C-alpha cells in the first residue's frame, strides 16, 4: 500500500485529506467524529474576535441539483464561527492533545490592524495547534466589514497581514485565497512576498444559486430577501484546478506549497489537485453531503491508484502534471486528430450528429445507405471533441491521432514536427524560432 503520510510545512498528517475550515470543523464534537472517521487533518472553522458574529436564523444554504437530487453545486451565506473565542480555543487545545498525529490548523479572520492579529495569534499558539490559515477568502458578510475576500482582493493587504503574522508567530502560516479576482497569481505572489509558508485555494465564489420565481427573490430567501453567497462543491472544481495550476507554474511562486480546495469529492479529484501541485487537499461540501465516512474511499481509492501506477509516496504525485500545463500559444498546431465512432458500441442516439450538424462542423453523418448510421466525415472533422463530450456511451467516440499522410480536411500533408502559434505564418507577431 502506498504511503499516504503527508508532511506539509512540517505539519504531519496520516493522509493528505483535511477538512476545510467550514461548518464540519466548527467544534470539538464534529472534529473528533472526523478524526475517528479517519480524516488526516482539519482546518478549524474561522475564529474571529469577541463578541462573536451572529448568523441568520433563516436558511444558509442553497444547492444546484442533478435530476436525481445529486448535489452538483453548493452555496452558503454562513459567517465565521458564531461561538465565543474562548470556547473554540479550549476545544482546539483539547482536540490537539487527544489527537497528536492529526493536523490541526486554525483559520483566522480579524480586522486589518496589526495588534488584532498579534492578539489572536498569541492565543492560538497557546493551544499548540499546528498552524494558522488566514481567511482572506469569504466573499459574503465578513467582506462587507473589510475582512475575508475584501482583503484577498487587494494584494497589498495580503502581503501586509501575512508579514505581520509571520513576524508574530512561530506557527506556519497558510494564506487562503479568494477566487473572486481576475488573476490568481497576483494574490499568491503577494502572500509569497509577505512570507507565507503556503497558500490554500479556492475559497467560495460569489454566487446567487437560484431565484425563487414565486417569491421573486434570490434563494435562499430570508424574509423575502436574499444576498449573494459563496459557491462551492463539484461544480467549482475546474475553476479551482486552474487556479492551483496557475500558481504552481508561476515562476514567481514556484515551490510555494499549495493546499488544494474546491469540489474535491472523490479520490480522483484529490489526485488531480495533487498532480497540479497541491500537497494536501481540503474537503467540505462532499463531507457535508455524505458525512465523514467518505474519507474511507478517499484513502483507499488514492492508495489503490498509486499502487497501480507505482507511486509509493504522495510526494511522487504532487506537481507531476504541472510541467504539462502550458499556454495556448505553445500547443502543437501540427497535431491532428479525428473522431472515431466505435460502431459496435454506438447506440445510435444521434447526439453526436446533431451537435456537430447544428453547432459545429457538419462532420458526422446521420445516414448511410438509407440506414441510421453515424460516422465521422474526415474531410470536415476538426477533432474538436464535442462529439466525445456529448456521447452518452463512454469510450464510444475516441480521438485518433493522425501522425502522417495528408489531413483530408485541409488537403495538406501532416507535418510531423512540433510547431506552435509563435511561429505560425498567420501570427502578425510571429518569431523565427518556436518558443517552447
Amino acid at each position, binding site marked *: 500500500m502506498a504511503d499516504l503520510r503527508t508532511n506539509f510545512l512540517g505539519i504531519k498528517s496520516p493522509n493528505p485529506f483535511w477538512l476545510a475550515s467550514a461548518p464540519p470543523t466548527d467544534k470539538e464534537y464534529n472534529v473528533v467524529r472526523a478524526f475517528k472517521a479517519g480524516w488526516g487533518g482539519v482546518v478549524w472553522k474561522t475564529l474571529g474576535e469577541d463578541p462573536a458574529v451572529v448568523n441568520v436564523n433563516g436558511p444558509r444554504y442553497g444547492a444546484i441539483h*442533478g*435530476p*436525481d*437530487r445529486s448535489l452538483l453545486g453548493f452555496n452558503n451565506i454562513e459567517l465565521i464561527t458564531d461561538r465565543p473565542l474562548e470556547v473554540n480555543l479550549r476545544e482546539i487545545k483539547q482536540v490537539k492533545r487527544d489527537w497528536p498525529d492529526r493536523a490541526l490548523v486554525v483559520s483566522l479572520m480579524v480586522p486589518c490592524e496589526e495588534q488584532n492579529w498579534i492578539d489572536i495569534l498569541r492565543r492560538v499558539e497557546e493551544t499548540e495547534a499546528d498552524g494558522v490559515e488566514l481567511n482572506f477568502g469569504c466573499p459574503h458578510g465578513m467582506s462587507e466589514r473589510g475582512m475575508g475576500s475584501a482583503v484577498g482582493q487587494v494584494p497589498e493587504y495580503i502581503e501586509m497581514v501575512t508579514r505581520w503574522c509571520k513576524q508574530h508567530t512561530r506557527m506556519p502560516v497558510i494564506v487562503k485565497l479568494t477566487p473572486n479576482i481576475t488573476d490568481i497569481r497576483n494574490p499568491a505572489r503577494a502572500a509569497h512576498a509577505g512570507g507565507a509558508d503556503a497558500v490554500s485555494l479556492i475559497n467560495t465564489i460569489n454566487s446567487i444559486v437560484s431565484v425563487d420565481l414565486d417569491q421573486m427573490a434570490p434563494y435562499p430567501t430570508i424574509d423575502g430577501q436574499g444576498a449573494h453567497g459563496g459557491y462551492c462543491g463539484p461544480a467549482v472544481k475546474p475553476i479551482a484546478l486552474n487556479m492551483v495550476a496557475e500558481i504552481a507554474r508561476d515562476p514567481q511562486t514556484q515551490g510555494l506549497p499549495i493546499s488544494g480546495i474546491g469540489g474535491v469529492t472523490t479520490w480522483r479529484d484529490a489526485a488531480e489537485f495533487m498532480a497540479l501541485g497541491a500537497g494536501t487537499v481540503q474537503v467540505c461540501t462532499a463531507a457535508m453531503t455524505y458525512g465523514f465516512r467518505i474519507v474511507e474511499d478517499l484513502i483507499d481509492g488514492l492508495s489503490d491508484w498509486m499502487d497501480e501506477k507505482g507511486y509509493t509516496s504522495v510526494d511522487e504525485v504532487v506537481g507531476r502534471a504541472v510541467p504539462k500545463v502550458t499556454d495556448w500559444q505553445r500547443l502543437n498546431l501540427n497535431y491532428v486528430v479525428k473522431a472515431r465512432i466505435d460502431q459496435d458500441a454506438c*447506440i*445510435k*442516439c*444521434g*447526439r453526436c*450528429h*446533431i451537435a456537430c450538424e447544428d453547432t459545429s462542423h457538419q462532420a458526422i453523418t*446521420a445516414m448511410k445507405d438509407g440506414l*441510421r448510421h453515424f460516422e465521422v466525415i474526415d474531410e470536415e472533422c476538426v477533432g474538436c471533441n464535442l462529439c466525445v463530450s456529448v456521447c*452518452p*456511451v463512454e469510450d464510444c467516440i475516441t480521438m485518433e491521432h493522425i501522425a502522417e499522410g495528408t489531413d483530408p480536411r485541409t488537403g495538406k500533408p501532416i507535418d510531423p514536427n512540433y510547431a506552435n502559434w509563435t511561429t505560425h505564418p498567420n501570427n502578425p507577431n510571429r518569431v523565427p524560432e518556436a518558443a517552447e
Partner: protein
Amino acid sequence: MADALVTPDIRAGRLTADDYLENFEDLHPPLGVHEARVEADRCYFCYDAPCTIACPTSIDIPKFIRQIATGNPLGSAKTIFEQNILGGMCARVCPTETLCEEACVRNLAEDRPVSIGLLQRHATDTFLARNASLPYERAAPTGKRVVVVGGGPAGLSCAHALAREGHDVTIFEARPKLGGLNEYGIAAYKTTHDFAQAEVDFVLSIGGITVKCDTALGRDITLEGLRRDFDAVFLGMGLGGVNALRTEGEDLAGVIDAVAYIAELRQAQDLSALPVGRKVVVIGGGMTAIDIAVQIKRLGAEEVTIAYRRDREAMKASAYEQEIALTNGVVIRECLAPRRLIGEGGHVRAIELERMLPDSAGRLTGTGESVTLEADQVFKAIGQTFVPDALGGGEALELDGGRIGVDADRRTSLTGVWAGGDCVAGGEDLTVASVEDGKIAAASIHAALSA
C-alpha cells in the same frame, strides 16, 4: 373421466372486498413527480428519435420527456395531445414494448428502455388533474356537418380533430357509452378509476360534438341515410363479431365469449357478483386471451390455463404480455388445438385438445395425441370479426379481407365515406393505430370539406 366430475364449481364472490380492490388497481402504478424526473433524465433526446418513428401517432417523445425533466409537465402533455388526443389511454394500453420502448436506444446500451409509457401517463395525468378541458380552441364554425359512426378511439380521434377545425360533428354509438374498447374491452387494471369516461369528457370538451348513444348502424340508422344527411361520414364501428370454435359442445353452458365477459366485467359495479369458475381454460393466443386469463385469475379462479394451438412465439400477445399472464399464475400451454367440449347436464366440464406439431413447411398438423383439461368455464378468445351486415343495402362498400377497404387517406370506395380503426383492412388492432386512423381521416375530410 366423466365419472370423476361433480357439479361445476362456478361461484361469485370468491375473494374479499379488499382483494378485489387490490387485484384491479393499476397494473403499473403511476410515477411520482421525482420518479418521473429521474426517469425522464434517462432519455438521451435522440436526433430523429427512433421512438417517435416507432409511434403510430408520431408523438414527439424526446420533446415531451424533456418537458417533464424541466418541470413543465403541462407543456409535455400538450406535446402529446398535439399528436394523440387519447394520449392518456395510449399511455396505459399501448404495447410500448413492441413500439416506442422497443425502439429506445437504451436497449442497445443496457437492455432497459426509458419508461416512455409511464412518462406519457405522468404528463397526461398531470394535465387532466389540473385541467378539465383541452388546451385548444375551436376554429370558427364552418357550417359543415360530419357524422362519425362508433365512439371508440378512431371515432373520438376523428371527431375531435374535425370539431377543432370548426366542423359540426355527430357521433352515433351503438352502446350506452362512448369509448369503444377503452370502455368495454381493455383489461380493468390497465384503465382504473373510470379513466375511459374521463378521457371521453376531455376529448368532447373541444365543443361542437353531438353524441347519440344506443344508436346502431343498420338498426337505427343507415349508411345511405347518413350519406344523405351529412357532408361526410366516418365509419369507426370496430369489430362486431367473434370467431366461433366450430367444435362439438360449443353451445354448452360455461363456454363463454371472452370479449362479452370482459365488457360485462368492465361495466360491473360489483366485481364480486361475476361468476368465476374454479378451473378455467382460455382458448386463444392474443391480447384478449391474456386479458381474460389474468382478469379471471384475479377474480379468484384457482387454475387458469391458456391453450394455444401454435407455440408461444407465434402468439399475437407479446412476450411482455405473456409474462404478465405467467406472473399472475396463469399457465400457458402451447401447441394444443381444441377438438371437443365435454359437458354434463348441459354444462361444460372439460375440454379435449389435440397436440399439434408444425410440419416441415411450418403448417400445423395434429399428432393424434389427445389432452383433456378439466374446466368449469371455457373462454373463447380466438379473434374478432368485422360484421358487414350493418352497412346495409344501397351502394356496397368494398371490403378487403373481410374488413372495409381504405386508401392511405382512409377513404373507402364510397364517395364521402371514410373509415378507420379495427373495422378497416390492414390495421394493427391497436388503440394507438385507431387514433392515427381517425387523425388521418379527419385531415382528409377537412381537406375535402375545405376544397
